[in-house]
């Protein structure tokens, strides 16, 4: 399943790359891409585990940039 989200308070381009790499490693993620310019996160992951994966991705984002969060 592929879905697009908005990353609020994404301020650093390097962080976006770090987040992308981190999320890629979550189990069940087929592909992920973060665009720093549009603050958009496109997540392609297993349908069954999607909500959990999204949650984990949120944790990764916060860890890289403390006030950054994923918005639908």
């Amino acid at each position, binding site marked *: 399943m592929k879905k697009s989200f908005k990353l609020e308070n994404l*301020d650093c*381009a390097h962080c976006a790359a770090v987040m992308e790499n981190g999320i890629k490693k979550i189990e069940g993620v087929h592909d992920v891409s973060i665009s*720093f*310019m549009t603050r958009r996160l496109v997540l392609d992951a297993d349908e069954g585990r999607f909500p959990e994966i999204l949650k984990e991705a949120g944790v990764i984002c916060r*860890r890289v940039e403390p006030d950054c969060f994923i918005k639908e």
Partner: protein
Amino acid sequence: MSVTLNKKQRRSLYRIIAASVFFAFAVLLSANGVYPKLYSSYAEFLLFLAVYLVIGGDVLLRAGKNILHGNVFDEHFLMSVATIGAFCLGQYPEAVAVMLFYQIGELFQSYAVEKSRRSIAELMDISPDHAYIERDGVIVSVNPGELQVGDHIVIKAGDRVPVDGVVIAGSSELDTASLTGESLPRYVGVGDQVISGCINISGVLHVRVAKPLSESTVTRILELVESAAGKKAKTEQFITRFSRYYTPAVVAAAVILAVIPPLLLAEPFPVWIERALIFLVVSCPCALVISIPLSFFGGIGGASRSGILVKGSNYLEALSKTDTIVFDKTGTLTRGSFSVTEIHPVGMLESELLAYAAHAEAYSSHPIAVSLRAAYQQTVSTSDLTDVSEHAGHGITATYLGRRIAVGNAELMQELGVNTEKDSPSRQGIHVAVDGRYAGWLVIADTVKPNAVYAVAELKKLGIRRVVMLTGDSSDVASSIARELGVDEYYAGLLPQDKVSVMEEILTKQRAGKTAAFVGDGINDAPVLSRADLGIAMGTLGSDAAIEAADIVLMDDDLMKIISAIGISRRTMHIVFQNIVFALGVKFLVLILAAFGVANMWEAVFADVGVAFIAILNAMRTLKIMR
């Protein structure tokens, strides 16, 4: 330039101003030596430490947090180590100044990024915010998302068309510039399709909704452009990978620089530690990490504004390397509609011949009939027309004003026992007979688009090595059109599946590092579009399959869009390389100078945030549209 800062940026600005004043005060005090002798060094240290904490406290905090999370090599960490190092060496003013400059640079950077994000958002501001729907004779304003197929909406002058639909009453002119880049308004009347995102300029239009918002053009364009960033160009991927190695490498070099030379050369540690700290400041790859994706996005955004949708940075990169362009003929190089190109009457006037032909074909909807009526230019009256009968595949016979008219190919003439002239063409012509006597022939052909010859010449000028034309037409027709256009090669008599194999053959002959693009109008080109290195669909806002299969979508069928698309792609790549060379050049220069002890902290800070700022400004140039 109006400056609007967000909350975070404003806070940062106030802090920078406060710290600057405080800093100037501290520098003055220490320069004049006003401290009581005994306490001077302590007082100085405390004063600068206070300024340092005001300006750099958050950086220290972030660095600490990130280390706890296992991300050691980020810019906060590097800045913290560099400035704390400077403090330890007793260079208080330098430490504070470096942090101050870093923060000013960050503010500029954040402002520039925000501004470019906003210009992109503006570019994308084509979605309608309301729609007027007619319910039981009353017009109410609704959210465009609520509209359903079949609804009757009213579009007032000055409003955006909310969803795709068909005009059922009224007429007006539409400004399609934000979709197609075309500045001339387009006239629409009853029965015409209207595309969402256009602006209604003059009259009131009553429109029946053909697609809900989620399937309308406006939504599709926004989705295409927004998800474009997902497909990253090779250069972009390279930079991300590069920066992953670059920072640790420079940090390792810094450690070596701090330890080895003093031990080997028996020189004082502080000198080399300072040089190592400069290395740390320079090591941040921000300039590249921000400016390269920004350049690509700017290019994509600028292109979309001129009616060229690029589905990913990788395609923009591929387009800049295209040296072979393969065109599907019909609808791309030619109009895809027939028109009368030659009239050869025998024993009557041209206008007479045309009048007979147009009237005989008055009821037919065959493309040839349509072109005959279009060429006649006057209204075709059917009142004097009787006995119309169609001879399938051959033509039509009818009685008009009491005369027997036959319009059709050579077979029809033969069937009716009419002798055609010797020099009349046997295949391409449409023959006309009146009362059993041969009256002449007309040539009906698919005409070349007005600017096609010019466009092919321009492509050559841009350095496109091969321009190829594919067509299902016979070899005769293909060769004359190919000659007229000036294309290098043509393949005629192709079925749709043949086009794929021809494309494959062309692809195997491509030189390494160069790409071959296919341009088609998309109606049955989807397989070739997806097979080519780069599929360009033309004038196909309506065709879903083509939009799916193509990598680049031109919103109208203007061939010159290909020229501008290539121009935009090359310009973008040019700016990308400028930034790579500039950023790495300055950084390496400062690193070398620092290793020999020539560069100071100030230059190091410039090599970090200054370069990033300049690179961002440069990247923003890609947003500008070329005409």
